[in-house]
């Protein structure tokens, strides 16, 4: 029968039979059923086949022919259970097969060694594999003996262990000092699988580790580096990709290597060409592309000139794309458009946006996240924002819907995109409010997850920037006074900072807006005051001071309220945080503090004289005089402008 389901426990019975023939046949049967067949793997795991097979592996004697046969077959079965199925890996580990497989690596029979090594390699491809402890000397001896081996399955296992378990720079350095680089480099001349395994392990050891990179480059007079460069031209796409990844790791760890424009361009072209591969390589090449261009304007420029955006767009047009591929391409486009306007306008002119909008409702969470991240990057274009390209319902409605996505990373990414989109430089933010976006955002400011709170407040902060009074009122009503006050006192400093920035934008502009800070007995202002007293982080203090500065630009009542916040009657003014901030080593903080004083002492206001007298009494004026020679132009400028209407240029912050 071709398709017998593992329906009964008969197979279990046979797997644990004491008759060698029956047992062997049963194990082989399971093997041929599950290899390549995920569904079958899952049903046999459920049936409890894994412990039975692990048992026969543990009990068989590797020195007898019968025993070694059983071991080879059992190891193949366990390896297949572990291949590509996490439940399988867990079941194999739970059944205690791992130490037995390790033990069998030192068997005499080469077939047994091969089978055990293959299974272990499968296990190490999963995140669930036990972490290898590089700090133990005997472990390192074992690992080096694997890497040194003539047997490809053993060197492959060694590489697999490095790729799986080497994470910290300490671990990378241990591997370097133990001479693993030399071993892996010699693998570059080996067979296809050895070469690929060596390249991937090298990339793992070199990643973000300048020390390891310089050691690698200096080895044999850059010969190793040259071999890796040579392998970017290899016949096999996978080898080309891994060689590129290795070079990207080198480049990203130490900017002094691979500076040549030729090699940079080459990497870009190779990765773009690898996109055409229909398999895993094509999927992974866009991720590699991202790490190559992320944060690097020169490489983004080169990629732009290599028509990278057209290329990605062409791939996106193929609607049957695998989710992983879609995710990779959107992330690559996000990195590509993160800095340069030419990239963003190319993106807009190709109508990639339409495809991105479709991806916002994709079934896979990772694709939705990637699409949001891409949108966030493209919407950094002031030109497109001003043209209102992103505030139409086609984008806003699906985006707002993503705010209540079940997956947190999607929510965070959607918030990121919204943060940028709401800075549309027009006072009208009605689309997003009408689509229910405001309610969702406010809801998320109450989330238990601090990253959601942070990004939601950030979005609101950008939303109230330059908004009209109606809009601000709507947002303020929805948020409520007490919620704003408690966000200012949030346990997370980053949320505090954004909440203060939100208030700063809220009270900017007309007199009525300033009144927001005094609602419900001024609990918001109290919260601002107490954060400034604590002065824990400079960024928080800066935003707090700008809140005060904006309020101080109001009427007499507002100005006096700030005066009494700065100089409470019970305290000695010389201990005032104002005085501290004016002397801060951070020029932005000094600037913000100076603005408060400028706005309090605008000569046109009737109480200005009285306030100057008070400031003098507290020693502030003499401080200001000293600041005329401030090295920071902004601070100096403030002192020379006696009356100024301050426009909060930096009141909105772009999400990068």
């Amino acid at each position, binding site marked *: 029968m*071709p*398709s017998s*389901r593992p329906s009964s426990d008969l197979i279990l019975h046979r797997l644990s039979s004491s008759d060698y023939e029956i047992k062997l046949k049963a194990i*082989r049967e399971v*093997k*041929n059923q599950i*290899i*390549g*067949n*995920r*569904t079958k793997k899952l049903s046999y795991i459920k049936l409890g086949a894994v412990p039975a097979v692990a048992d026969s592996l543990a009990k068989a004697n590797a020195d007898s022919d019968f025993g070694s046969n059983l071991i080879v077959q059992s190891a*193949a079965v366990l*390896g*297949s259970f572990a*291949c*590509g199925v996490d439940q399988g890996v867990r079941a194999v580990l739970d059944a205690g097969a791992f130490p037995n497989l390790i033990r069998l690596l030192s068997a005499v029979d080469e077939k047994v060694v091969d089978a055990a090594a*293959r299974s272990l390699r*499968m296990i190490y491809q999963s995140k669930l594999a036990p972490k290898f402890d590089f700090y133990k000397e005997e472990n390192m001896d074992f690992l080096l003996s694997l890497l040194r081996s003539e047997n*490809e399955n053993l060197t492959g296992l060694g590489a697999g262990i490095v790729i799986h378990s080497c994470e910290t720079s300490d671990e990378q350095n241990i591997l370097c000092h133990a001479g693993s680089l030399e071993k892996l480099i010699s693998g570059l001349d080996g*067979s*296809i*699988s*050895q070469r690929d395994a060596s390249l991937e392990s090298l990339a793992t050891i070199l990643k973000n580790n300048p020390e390891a990179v310089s050691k690698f480059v200096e080895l044999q007079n850059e010969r190793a580096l040259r071999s890796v460069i040579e392998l970017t031209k290899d016949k096999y796409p996978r080898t080309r990709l891994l060689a590129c990844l290795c070079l990207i790791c080198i480049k990203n760890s130490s900017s002094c290597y691979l500076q040549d424009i030729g090699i940079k361009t080459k990497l870009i072209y190779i990765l773009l060409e690898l996109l055409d591969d229909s398999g895993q390589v094509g999927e992974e090449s866009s991720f590699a592309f991202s790490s190559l261009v992320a944060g690097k304007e020169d490489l983004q420029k080169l990629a732009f000139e290599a028509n990278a955006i057209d290329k990605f767009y062409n791939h996106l047009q193929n609607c*049957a794309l695998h989710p992983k591929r879609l995710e990779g391409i959107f992330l690559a486009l996000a990195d590509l458009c993160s800095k340069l306007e030419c990239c963003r306008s190319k993106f807009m002119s190709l109508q990639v946006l339409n495809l991105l909008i479709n991806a916002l409702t994709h079934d896979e969470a990772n694709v939705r996240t990637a699409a949001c991240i891409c949108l966030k990057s493209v919407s950094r274009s002031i030109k497109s924002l001003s043209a209102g390209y992103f505030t139409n319902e086609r984008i806003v409605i699906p985006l707002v819907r993503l705010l209540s996505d079940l997956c947190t990373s999607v929510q965070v990414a959607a918030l990121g995109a919204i943060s940028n989109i709401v800075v549309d430089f027009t006072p009208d933010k009605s689309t997003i409010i009408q689509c229910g976006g405001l309610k969702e955002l406010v809801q998320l400011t109450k989330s238990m997850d601090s990253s959601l709170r942070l990004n939601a407040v950030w979005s609101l902060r950008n939303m109230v920037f330059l908004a009209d009074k109606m809009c601000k009122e709507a947002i303020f009503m929805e948020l409520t006074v007490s919620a704003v006050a408690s966000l200012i006192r949030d346990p997370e400093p980053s949320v505090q900072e954004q909440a203060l920035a939100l208030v700063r934008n809220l009270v900017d502009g007309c007199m009525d807006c300033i009144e927001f800070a005094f609602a419900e007995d001024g609990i918001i202002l109290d919260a601002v005051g107490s954060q400034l007293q604590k002065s824990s982080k400079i960024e928080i203090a800066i935003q707090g001071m700008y809140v005060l500065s904006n309020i101080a630009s109001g009427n007499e009542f507002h100005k006096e309220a700030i005066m009494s916040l700065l100089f409470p009657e019970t305290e000695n003014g010389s201990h005032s945080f104002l005085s501290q901030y004016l002397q801060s080593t951070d020029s932005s903080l000094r600037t913000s503090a100076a603005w408060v004083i400028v706005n309090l002492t605008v000569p046109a206001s009737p109480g200005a004289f009285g306030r100057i007298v008070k400031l003098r009494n507290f020693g502030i004026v003499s401080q200001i005089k000293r600041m005329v020679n401030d090295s920071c132009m902004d601070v100096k400028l403030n002192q020379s402008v006696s009356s100024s209407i301050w426009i909060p240029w930096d009141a909105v912050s772009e999400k990068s």
Partner: protein
Amino acid sequence: MSLFWIVIRQLAEIEAMAASKKVITREEWERKLNNVNIRKEDMNKLVMNFLVTEGFVEAAEKFRKESGTEPDIDLATITDRMAVKKAVQSGNVEDAIEKVNDLNPEILDTNPQLFFHLQQQRLIELIRNGKVEEALEFAQEELAPRGEENQSFLEELERTVALLAFEDVSNCPVGELLDISQRLKTASEVNAAILTSQSHEKDPKLPSLLKMLIWAQNQLDEKAAFPRINDLSTAALEDPA
């Protein structure tokens, strides 16, 4: 081989000259051919590479004894590989799958496309043998889950199952699936996968050299009239028209 290099060199020479089409006589051409030395060992390696890759194990063995050329792969592994290939070619797909799994359990576990094609071939064989019910059950149990995992598999599966809808399969639009060429296609895919798993090139070098020869002759044709090889099996030079 030698011809190939001559053609390339000639191309370069002509490139440098005027655009008018140069005529190269047979004499001149043969003289040039004679001036090219190719090591016998290299030719032998090329032949051995072909025999090994295509799986002619007995011929390879004999060739090794006669020419002293060492194959770049253990000849024993060829026998196993050929057994797999033969099993597919004769329609014993289940047997072929077991043999591949014995050879290396990773091959089918890490190569979903190949695994699908083998299962598809199994389905085709069931249909060929008129086992309709078994075929349907097999398609549902084994192939449908793969189709769920991959869109292109699903399309191929639909095409295959369509065979069941026709009375006269030899005349239906998907009839070519029952062709012997389908078996050969699947067999060569398995062959290539096994070779790759053994870190061996999956294609012999000889055919690609012949392809390069044709390409180079065509390039040269645009610039010069020369004695071409048109019949690759005899490699006879034909006088320029």
